[in-house]
């Protein structure tokens, strides 16, 4: 296949940035999308141009490092698929493909397609954990957990923190990310003692980072490669409300 790419190039955070066209030829349908970009970068290197910078690591869809807006869709056209697991067989010979970074005030562009997502880590720092210092744990089977609760916790814990939900949201909200962590920890008995304060403090950090509020549009869940369901935002709202109204709450 021969493909035309229009890629966002931005030298650094202060640069204005622009879309630049490139052609790549003889692309195999079995290539992954990122392998197609590897081919482009090999071409650029040999002609002395600066290769396109993009984030990627495991290329198995689990580390959450890859992050491309492909033809206006976060992670491209395939449902439940991170960019690194997208293959060129979903495109056709002669296609023109637009590739941009995640767009959000809370994710400043570092270079080309790479953005700074450290705001998500800071949300976790604000309470996205269960305080269990090493060595203090009781035997693992001391507390039983109903299987439905364990499954629900897992569904939230499956979030890969890629930030696609933010990129897709018209409000630039990270509520799905937040809801996933709140649901993960709040569904387990071990997570109950800090449940209310966690929801309140993580949400405060979310807002302080400049992410927008949720208006239940649902673009986030449509692009989420890990299939985090929208009702985890309801869980978030429930826990925040509870945290704000409980006696002794914040």
């Amino acid at each position, binding site marked *: 296949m021969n493909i035309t790419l229009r890629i966002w190039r931005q030298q650094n955070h202060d640069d204005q940035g622009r879309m630049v066209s490139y052609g790549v030829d003889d692309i195999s349908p079995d290539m992954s999308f990122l392998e197609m970009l590897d081919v482009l970068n090999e071409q650029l290197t040999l002609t002395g141009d600066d290769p396109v910078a993009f984030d990627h690591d495991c290329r198995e869809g689990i580390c959450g490092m890859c992050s491309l807006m492909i033809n206006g869709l976060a992670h491209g056209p395939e449902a439940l698929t991170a960019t690194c697991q997208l293959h060129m067989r979903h495109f056709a010979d002669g296609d023109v493909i637009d590739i941009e970074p995640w767009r959000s005030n809370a994710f400043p562009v570092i270079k080309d397609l790479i953005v700074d997502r450290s705001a998500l880590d800071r949300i976790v*720092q604000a309470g996205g954990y269960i305080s269990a210092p090493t060595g203090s744990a009781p035997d*693992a089977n001391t507390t039983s957990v109903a299987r439905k609760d364990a499954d629900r916790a897992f569904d939230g814990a499956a979030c890969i923190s890629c930030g696609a939900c933010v990129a897709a949201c018209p409000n630039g909200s990270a509520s799905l990310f937040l809801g996933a962590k709140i649901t993960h920890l709040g569904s387990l008995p071990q997570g109950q003692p800090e449940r209310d304060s966690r929801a309140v403090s993580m949400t405060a950090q979310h807002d302080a980072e400049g992410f927008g509020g949720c208006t239940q549009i649902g673009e986030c869940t449509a692009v989420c490669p890990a299939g985090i369901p929208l009702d985890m935002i309801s869980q978030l709202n429930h826990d925040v409300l509870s945290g704000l109204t409980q006696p002794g709450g914040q």
Partner: protein
Amino acid sequence: MNDLYTLGEPLVDLKDPGGPIEDRWDKRRFEAKLVSPANRRRLSVIVIGTGLAGGSAAATLGEAGYHVKSFCYQDSPRRAHSIAAQGGINAAKDYRNDGDSIRRLFYDTIKGGDYRSRESNVYRLAQVSESIIDQAVAQGVPFAREYGGLLDTRSFGGVQVSRTFYARGQTGQQLLLGAYQALERQVQAGTVDLHTRHEMLDLIVIDGRARGVVIRDMITGEIETHLADAVVLASGGYGNAFYLSTNAMGCNATAIWRAHRKGALFANPCFTQIHPTCIPVSGTHQSKLTLMSESLRNDGRIWVPAKAGDDRDPREIPETERDYFLERMYPAFGNLVPRDVASRAAKNQCDAGHGVGPTGLGVYLDFVDAIGRLGRSVIESKYGNLFDMYRKITAEDPYQVPMRIYPAIHYTMGGLWVDYDLQSSIPGLFVIGEANFSDHGANRLGASALMQGLADGYFILPNTINDYLAANPLSPGIDTSHPEAVKAATAVRDRIEKLLAINGGRSVDSFHRELGSILWEHCGMERNAEGLEHAIGLIRGLKEQFWSNVRVTGHDEELNQALERAGRVADFFELAELMCIDALNRAESCGGHFRSESQTDEGEALRRDGEYAYVAAWEFTGLGTPPRLHKENLEFEYVELQQRSYK
């Protein structure tokens, strides 16, 4: 002996406390010096890497009150490649009442490692395994559970007891998030300074002790020096020396290799693990390989066409014209033979022309019998996510057409040599997780990598590092202007300038790919002296070409991914040569390492305990001068050495 290496003094682990094996860890912890809580905040520890080992260590040292500086090359500590581990984590809990015990996990691990690991270390690993599960559950790791609400376990990798805890097919992800969250809790508490997108490029050794690191800020390109009372490397394995592996693209050996060049011995570099159930290479564009959990071999049957070159649709090949080669060769274990045996058999079939798929480098893994016996829904519930992943990558439906699989590099058992305290041969430099060599011998059991990483990080290192810190704090007055720190930073800058100045005609990746194919061909799952000597010549030639003809675009003082890769590949060249030298020295077949000169009449691996029951620890003596081999003899008091047999 030849001119490739020289022999040095034997090596002894002086920290192994001896005595009855059950009491050794207790004894060591009791004898180790402690640091009083009030003094801990004045002591600092650098931790490189934030995977299961590094993340759990940094969090635990922070909880203890030390001042921790944590570094990772990714944009978040949660992206370390531990996250990709699928199958599970072993622990000797014996919740199933099926005869498991610390003793049995110890025995299985020693045997699985083909008797090339230390009894003391492995016994401690089995002892600590139980606490890891407790710790993870307390953190909220959502392990699989029975309907009664208690933890579920399964049997894994042909082991006869059900001791593997799991979280769907994403156990590594969930355990890493537990460690990551504990780490972020300490960042919030102010005990851990976190530096993401920062890569270690050298170790700073002052007066014979590890006292700091040289780090490149991957966004600005700035070269920084950081000093501390001790340094911990948790930077993972070196599987990416092979270019194609199941490692993440960024996994590299630079941290451990730079430490090796500064004096840390490198143990058993040729011990690498090849995993039989990976998705085959589809073409020259391939950038990495994807593993599918070997649990698939519980129900899938592996076969090739009996006639070489038979390229019919597999569904049209009748039973009588198929060769279920593992079932034929190993009737007792069949498709469940260990990883190395299954991998080598598959490669031999392909080499003999029976391989399938567009490249001929693949064998079938067929579920048609299992679907017929158990029904599609059972197979779907067991392996649904793996089948989906396979379909995404290959566009073939494994419910209809047999999967194609091929072996790939997955894990490296070798790594920096450490003593019982996990301290390297440089005082003050500790090495944990896959980066060290300590527990898996010549082959690692399934579901044991997660166990070792977390054992080291949560429980072992935090107890042994005190002993060092109590007696050896950094002298007051030493800061980043110390000549050794300045020298190390200058060397890093010079090397970067050199790489950028070559401006040759080939990309970094093209060199890496070629290096990988040399290693795979000659230092992969089957090796011999002739091939290894040939490979050493090829690697040296290619390394020279690299330093004269590589093209690294861009500048130093910016985000520059080509420059990052160039430095890593330059180190892989040097490590690759040592891997071949180590493989050449070890003229026996053991674990994942098959030497064609050392086999039984039936073509099976022949271990040679009389000559090679030792850890090969290599000393760097300078570029272009032969490395020096130090042997640490392995003594076995508690297990009896046996040849493995799966017939």
